[in-house]
C-alpha cells in the first residue's frame, strides 16, 4: 500500500507522453495516444519537471527561480487534474485535498468499467458534418417531444401488467439502452468535431449496463457554438431514441420518456462540474470568468458566491440554480408519488415487490440529499462553526475548566515567548499571577486607564475595541486563546490604547508587569525589554489574525525569523504606487490606508496584510500605502516571502486569492475610469 503525502511533499511522476503546444494551451498525450489532457501552456515547466524526482515544493522553487513568479492555484489544479485523469504513475500517493472536488476522482466502488473500443481517429475533423448532424438531432428530438404524452407516466401505467417488479426492470433496461445510444452519438459527434475518440467502455452499475464514452476530446474544442450544439444534441438524443417506441407500445414509450426526463434533470444539474455546466457558466458569466470555464473545474455553487464574479453574472447563475431546484423538487415529488402509489397498492398482493420499490425510492432520496449536502456543505461551514462555538461557550459557562498550576504552565509553554523562560522562572511568574474568570460582556481593560498588568487569555474570546471622536467605536481585533495582550504596560505604566471586552465567559491570567520585567532580565534569551514587547506583539498577531492564526508553528517561526519590525508614526509612506515591489507587509498594530492615484480606497487594520499583489503578479506597486495612526508593521523581503509561499502552498493560494480579490474590487471600483491603456503608466 502506498503512503499518502500532502501536496507540498508529493513528487509527481508522469506517465510517458508528449507535450504538444497549441497557442495558449498545451496538450499532453500519453505515449500510446490513448489519453489526452489540455492544460495551460505556462504549466509546461511543471510538466517537464514531473519526473518523480522532485517534490512539488522543489518544482515550485525551480519555476520561481526561472520565472520570478508563478500562479499557485493553476499549478495546484493542474497536478490534481493530471492525477484525476490518470496521467500520474503515483497519483494514488497524493492526499485528497479539501479544496479539490472532481467528478473524475470519485470512488467508483459501485461501478466497473471494461474497455470495449480503444482510441479512434479520423484523418481530419469534419465540422460541417457535425454541424448538420447536430442540428438534425436537435430538431428531430424537439419534434419527437411534440408527441410526448403528458404526464409521461401516470399512476395507472407505472405498474405494468400488475407487476411493480416488472416496471422496475423495464426502467433498468431502458436506462441501459438510452445511455448506450447517447454514448454512441457522443462518440460520433466527437469524431466529427475533433477527429478523435478516446475509447468506449462498458460500465456495469446498479442502475444499468451500458457503453460509456469519455469527454476528453471535448477539451480540445474552444468554439462555444459547437460546444453548445454538442451538448444540446447529446442531451436530447435519448428523447429521439425513445421515439420509435411510441409505435410499438405507448406504455413502454411512457417509461422511456420518464427516464429521459430523469436523465435530463441529472445532466442539467448545476451541482455538478460537468462540461455542460462549464459551458453554461461561461455563457451566463461576464468578462474574465468566461475564460476559466474550459479548464478550471470550479465548483458552481462556490463560484456563485465568489467575490470575483460580477453581480450581474451571479444573478443569472442564481436564477438558473433556483429554476433547477424548483424543477427538480417538482419532478421528484411527481415521480415519487407515482412510485409510492404503485408500491402502496401492491403491499397486500406482493409485499416483496413493495419492499423493493420502497428501498429504491429511499435510496434515491438519500442519494439526492447527499449530493445536495455535498455541494451545500461549504456554505454550511460558517454557520455550523458559529453554532459549534456557541455550544462550546455554553458548555464552558456551565462547566468551566479548572486551571490548575500544571495546566496553566502547559498553556503558557504553548506560547513560543514563554518557552524561553526556565521552569523556575515560569513557576515564579505563576506564583505571582492571578487567574480571573470574566463573564461575557464584562470589560477587562478600559481605554485610557493606566496599565500595570499583562494578560494571557487562557480560555474564551475577547474583543479589542477603540473609541475615538472622529470614527466612533471601532473593533480592532478578536483575541483567541492562548494569546498575550496588554503588553504596552511592560515598558512603562502607560495608558491603555483600547478596551478589551469578553465576548463569552473567558479565563485570563493576570501577570503583574514588575514580575515579568524581573523574569525578562533573568532570562537567558529575553534580556531586552523592548525585544520582549515586540515578541508579544508578533505572537499576538499570529494567534489572533484570522488569516494567519491557523499556520503551523514552524511556518510562524520561519516568518518571524525572516521579517523585521517597523514602528511607524501616522502619515508615513510604506509603499509608493509605481515603485518596485520588494517586500510583503503585515499589520501588527495600528492601521494603514491604501491610496490609488492619491485617492483613499480602503483601510487595512491590525491583523491584515498588504503588498502581496506586486510580488505575486511580478508588477510594480498598484497602490500607495500610508499609515493613519501609530503602527507596527512586519516587513518580509520578497525572496523570503516566496520561500515561505513555496513551502506552504495553502498559505500561498490563500494570499494569492486575497490579492486577486483585492485587484477585482479595485477594478470594479474603478470601472468608470478611462480605458485600461490610458490607465497604464
Amino acid at each position, binding site marked *: 500500500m502506498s503512503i499518502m503525502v500532502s501536496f507540498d511533499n508529493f513528487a509527481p511522476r508522469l506517465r*510517458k507522453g508528449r507535450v504538444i503546444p497549441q497557442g495558449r494551451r498545451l496538450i499532453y498525450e500519453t505515449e500510446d495516444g490513448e489519453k489526452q489532457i489540455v492544460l495551460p501552456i*505556462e504549466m509546461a515547466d511543471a510538466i517537464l519537471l514531473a519526473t518523480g524526482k522532485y517534490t512539488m515544493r522543489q518544482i515550485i522553487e525551480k519555476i520561481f527561480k526561472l520565472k520570478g513568479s508563478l500562479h499557485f492555484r493553476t499549478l495546484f489544479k493542474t497536478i490534481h487534474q493530471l492525477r484525476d485523469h490518470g496521467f500520474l504513475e503515483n497519483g494514488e500517493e497524493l492526499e485528497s485535498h479539501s479544496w479539490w472536488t472532481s467528478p473524475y476522482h470519485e470512488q467508483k466502488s459501485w461501478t466497473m468499467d471494461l474497455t470495449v473500443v480503444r482510441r479512434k481517429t479520423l484523418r481530419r475533423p469534419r465540422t460541417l458534418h457535425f454541424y448538420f448532424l447536430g442540428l438534425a438531432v436537435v430538431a428531430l428530438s424537439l419534434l419527437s417531444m411534440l408527441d410526448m404524452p403528458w404526464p409521461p407516466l401516470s399512476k395507472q401505467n407505472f405498474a405494468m401488467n400488475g407487476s411493480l417488479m416488472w416496471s422496475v426492470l423495464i426502467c433498468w433496461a431502458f436506462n441501459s439502452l438510452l445511455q448506450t445510444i447517447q454514448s454512441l452519438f457522443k462518440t460520433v459527434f466527437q469524431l466529427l468535431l475533433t477527429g478523435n475518440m478516446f475509447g468506449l467502455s462498458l460500465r456495469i452499475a446498479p442502475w444499468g449496463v451500458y457503453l460509456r464514452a469519455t469527454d476528453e476530446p471535448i477539451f480540445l474544442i474552444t468554439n462555444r457554438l459547437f460546444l453548445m450544439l454538442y451538448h444540446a444534441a447529446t442531451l436530447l438524443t435519448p428523447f429521439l431514441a425513445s421515439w420509435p417506441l411510441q409505435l410499438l407500445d405507448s406504455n413502454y414509450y411512457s417509461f422511456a420518456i420518464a427516464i429521459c426526463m430523469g436523465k435530463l434533470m441529472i445532466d442539467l444539474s448545476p451541482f455538478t462540474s460537468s462540461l455542460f455546466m462549464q459551458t453554461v457558466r461561461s455563457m451566463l458569466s461576464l468578462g474574465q470568468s468566461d475564460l476559466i470555464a*474550459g479548464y478550471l473545474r470550479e465548483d458552481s455553487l462556490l463560484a456563485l458566491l465568489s467575490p470575483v464574479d460580477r453581480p450581474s453574472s451571479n444573478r443569472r447563475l442564481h436564477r438558473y440554480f433556483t429554476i433547477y431546484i424548483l424543477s427538480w423538487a417538482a419532478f421528484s415529488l411527481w415521480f415519487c408519488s407515482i412510485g409510492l402509489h404503485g408500491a402502496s397498492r401492491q403491499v397486500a398482493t406482493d409485499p416483496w415487490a413493495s419492499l423493493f420499490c420502497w428501498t429504491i425510492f429511499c435510496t434515491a432520496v438519500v442519494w439526492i440529499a447527499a449530493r445536495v449536502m455535498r455541494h451545500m456543505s461549504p456554505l454550511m461551514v460558517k454557520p455550523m462553526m458559529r453554532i459549534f462555538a456557541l455550544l462550546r461557550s455554553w458548555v464552558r459557562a456551565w462547566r468551566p475548566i479548572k486551571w490548575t498550576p500544571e495546566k496553566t504552565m502547559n498553556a503558557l509553554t504553548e506560547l513560543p515567548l514563554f518557552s524561553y523562560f526556565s521552569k523556575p522562572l515560569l513557576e515564579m511568574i505563576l506564583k505571582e499571577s492571578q487567574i480571573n474568570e470574566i463573564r461575557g460582556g464584562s470589560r477587562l481593560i478600559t481605554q485610557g486607564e493606566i496599565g500595570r498588568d499583562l494578560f494571557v487569555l487562557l480560555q474564551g474570546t475577547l474583543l479589542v475595541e477603540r473609541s475615538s471622536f472622529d470614527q466612533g467605536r471601532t473593533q480592532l481585533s478578536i483575541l483567541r486563546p492562548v494569546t498575550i495582550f496588554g503588553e504596552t504596560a511592560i515598558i512603562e505604566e502607560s495608558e491603555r490604547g483600547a478596551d478589551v471586552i469578553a465576548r463569552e465567559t473567558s479565563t485570563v491570567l493576570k501577570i503583574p508587569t514588575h514580575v515579568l520585567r524581573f523574569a525578562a532580565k533573568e532570562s537567558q534569551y529575553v534580556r531586552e525589554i523592548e525585544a520582549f514587547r515586540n515578541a508579544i506583539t508578533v505572537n499576538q498577531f499570529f494567534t489572533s489574525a484570522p488569516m494567519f492564526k491557523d499556520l503551523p508553528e514552524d511556518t510562524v517561526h520561519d516568518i518571524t525569523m525572516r521579517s523585521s519590525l517597523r514602528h511607524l508614526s501616522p502619515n508615513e509612506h510604506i509603499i509608493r504606487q509605481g515603485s518596485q515591489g520588494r517586500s510583503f507587509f503585515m499589520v501588527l498594530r495600528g492601521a494603514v490606508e491604501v491610496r490609488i492615484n492619491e485617492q483613499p480606497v480602503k483601510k487595512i487594520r491590525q491583523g491584515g496584510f498588504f503588498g502581496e499583489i506586486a510580488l505575486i503578479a*511580478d508588477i510594480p506597486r498598484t497602490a500607495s500605502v500610508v499609515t493613519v495612526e501609530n503602527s507596527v508593521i512586519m516587513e518580509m523581503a520578497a525572496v523570503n516571502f516566496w520561500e515561505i509561499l513555496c513551502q506552504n502552498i495553502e498559505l500561498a493560494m490563500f494570499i494569492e486569492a486575497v490579492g486577486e480579490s483585492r485587484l477585482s474590487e479595485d477594478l470594479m471600483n474603478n470601472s468608470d475610469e478611462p480605458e485600461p491603456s490610458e490607465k497604464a503608466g
Partner: protein
Amino acid sequence: MGNAWWRRIWQKRITVESPATSAPFLAREHGLDRRLKARVRLPAHNADYLPIFKNSSRELTVVDLSVGGVCLLDFQDFLLNHLSQTVPLTLQWPDREEWIMARVAGVSRHTHRHLQFLELSEQSQKQIKVLVQMGSYGQKITQVRDLKQSPAQLLVTELWTGLQGDGLVFYDSADTLAELTMGLITVRFHHSIAPQVVLDPDRNKTRPALNKEISDALICLANIPEPSGRLKDLLLRLSTPTQPWLTTGSGV
C-alpha cells in the same frame, strides 16, 4: 443588448488557460501595471508603427524606450556628451512628426546616450505605453528546459512560455517556423509567406498579420530575456527589409 447571454454563443470562445481572475492577468489586461518608467527594447528594424528618433535629420538607433526617456546609439558623437545638457530630437511616428527636447541623463559605453524627455505630447506618451505593454509581454517569457530524464517529451524544437498564456513555439516544419502568442493574439511565422494571425486554432483559420501586429510581435520578441540562437535568427529574419512581405508593405 450587447451583453445578452445568448449572444455570447457567437461572441466569445472558451479557451483553455490559466484563470482570468489571476492577479497577473488582471493586472496586465486591465492596465493595473501602474509603472511609470518601464523600459522596453526596440528591435533593430524600421518597421512601420515603431518610432524613429532623429537629430538634425540623422536617424539614431533606439536601444530602449520608456515614457520617461530613450536610450540612443550614437557612434559618431552627434549628441552631446555632457550630463544635463538638452538635445533637440525629432520623434517620427508613421503618421506624424513631433519635435521634442531631451536632457542627457547618462552616457555609457561611449556610444549609449540616455536621454530624458523634457516634454512629450500626450499622444506620443499613449503610443509609447502601447509599445511598453508589448515589450512587457516579452519580458516575462522564458525558455522551457527540455529535461532528458523527463517522461514528457517536448514535440517542438523550442518552447518559451510566459506567466499568463503567452508563449513562443519553434517548429521543425517545412512550412511553419514559429508561433508567438501575446495577450489574446497568436501570430504564426512562416518560412516563405507573410506572418499570419491565427483566428481559429481548431480549424487552422488564419489571416495575414497587419503591420501593427507585426511591429507588436517584433517588440515582444526583442524583449525576451536570454534569447536563443533560433530566436535571434527569427528576429533577424523579421528585421531584414528584403522579406517579400515587408517590401510590399506587409502581407495585407
